[in-house]
């Protein structure tokens, strides 16, 4: 081998090594992790996977889970519907017409505009964090948005479906290190996003929560509703751990303005503070 050719071989090897050393992309990383599944830490019972912490989805799927082009400072989003592969919710024709109508009216008809709870699975991917609370035998999720919460009950007992709930009734079990939650008894008044995607009271969701890294939970929801959808479908997204020091779930309440429109007002917003108005309080009237 000539020296030039040897150099070329060496350079080629260096380049190849460099290419292989580039950190893998998201999907490749997931494939790699699937080959060697992440093993989460345990609670103090030594066996229950520890999912505790503050988590948040990135991206803007909450605007439209089928994807949207973005604009006006809002990042675009691809569909988080992974089945069917075209990323579209398999509505029945008459239901699709209703979704289109919801979409046209979304600026006024979205229940979230009235500060109603987001429902399941929408509460998972809204733009505010959630906190997973756990202890051996207890699993609950507190959602910052409108301080909604869900207590997950062991699936040894049937759904409490005496009425239709906004956050559903959840019965869960562990399958290895994955939490599987069956959600039913949901009101048909909640939407799946800001785009008017909706369901009936026959809505049924099977959620899967699996830690794919110390700071990531892969979230999957298998969704069916024989009244609204032609077949079951699946959405998938990732919850990322919120790691800023001192991060916590903040109180979220709405205040109504003079026109009856509700606005989320943060506790750090001075408008939340109602200072005593001693001038308005009447002086005591002596009898």
């Amino acid at each position: 081998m000539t020296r030039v050719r040897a150099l070329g071989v060496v350079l080629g090897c260096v380049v190849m090594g460099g290419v292989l050393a580039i950190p893998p992309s998201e999907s490749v990383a997931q494939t790699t992790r699937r080959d060697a599944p992440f093993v989460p830490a345990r609670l103090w019972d030594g066996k229950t996977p520890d999912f505790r912490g503050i988590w948040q989805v990135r991206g803007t799927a909450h605007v439209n889970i089928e994807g949207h082009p973005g604009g006006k400072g809002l990042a675009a989003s691809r569909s988080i519907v992974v089945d069917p592969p075209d990323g579209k919710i398999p509505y029945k024709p008459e239901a699709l017409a209703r979704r289109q109508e919801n979409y046209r009216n979304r600026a006024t008809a979205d229940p979230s505009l009235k500060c109603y709870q987001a429902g399941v699975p929408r509460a998972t991917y809204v733009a505010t964090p959630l906190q997973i609370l756990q202890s051996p035998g207890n699993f609950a999720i507190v959602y910052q948005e409108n301080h909604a919460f869900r207590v997950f009950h062991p699936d040894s007992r049937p759904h409490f479906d005496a009425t239709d709930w906004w956050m559903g009734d959840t019965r869960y079990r562990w399958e290895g290190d994955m939490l599987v939650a069956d959600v039913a008894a949901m009101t048909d008044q909640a939407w799946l996003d800001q785009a008017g995607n909706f369901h009936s009271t026959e809505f049924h969701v099977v959620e899967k929560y699996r830690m794919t890294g110390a700071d990531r939970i892969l979230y999957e929801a298998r969704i069916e509703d024989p009244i609204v959808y032609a077949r079951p479908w699946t959405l998938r997204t990732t919850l990322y751990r919120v790691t800023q020091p001192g991060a916590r779930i903040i109180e979220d309440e709405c205040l109504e303005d003079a026109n009856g429109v509700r606005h989320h007002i943060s506790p750090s917003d001075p408008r939340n503070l109602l200072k005593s108005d001693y001038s308005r309080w009447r002086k005591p009237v002596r009898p």
Partner: protein
Amino acid sequence: MVALSSNVTPAAAHHSFAAEFDFQKPVTLKGIVVRWEMINPHGWITMDVPGEDGKTSQWMIETSNPNGLMRLGWTKRSLKAGDEITVDGYKAKDGSNTANAARVTLADGRKVFAGSAGTP
């Protein structure tokens, strides 16, 4: 058959009774259930009430907090469209066809307490 207990008083937090309903205007409404909405903070029974003049008017009946009712055995299936019921309650002050249900009598004669604190 779901047992509807009627001997325990769910004294629910009820802000609105005195502001909304009139103690001086008791009413008995006999009619047909159109819809039973078991929602918070109060449940609502929509019922069609035939009047003496032959005309039917629709009434909205407010019940106490459903969570308390659920713990007594009520469900969204306890009342179905078409059920005959009799409601004893108090009329709303604003003159609308709205009443607070103190007691609901079902078609089979069982009486169920459905009102809340402040309902005599």
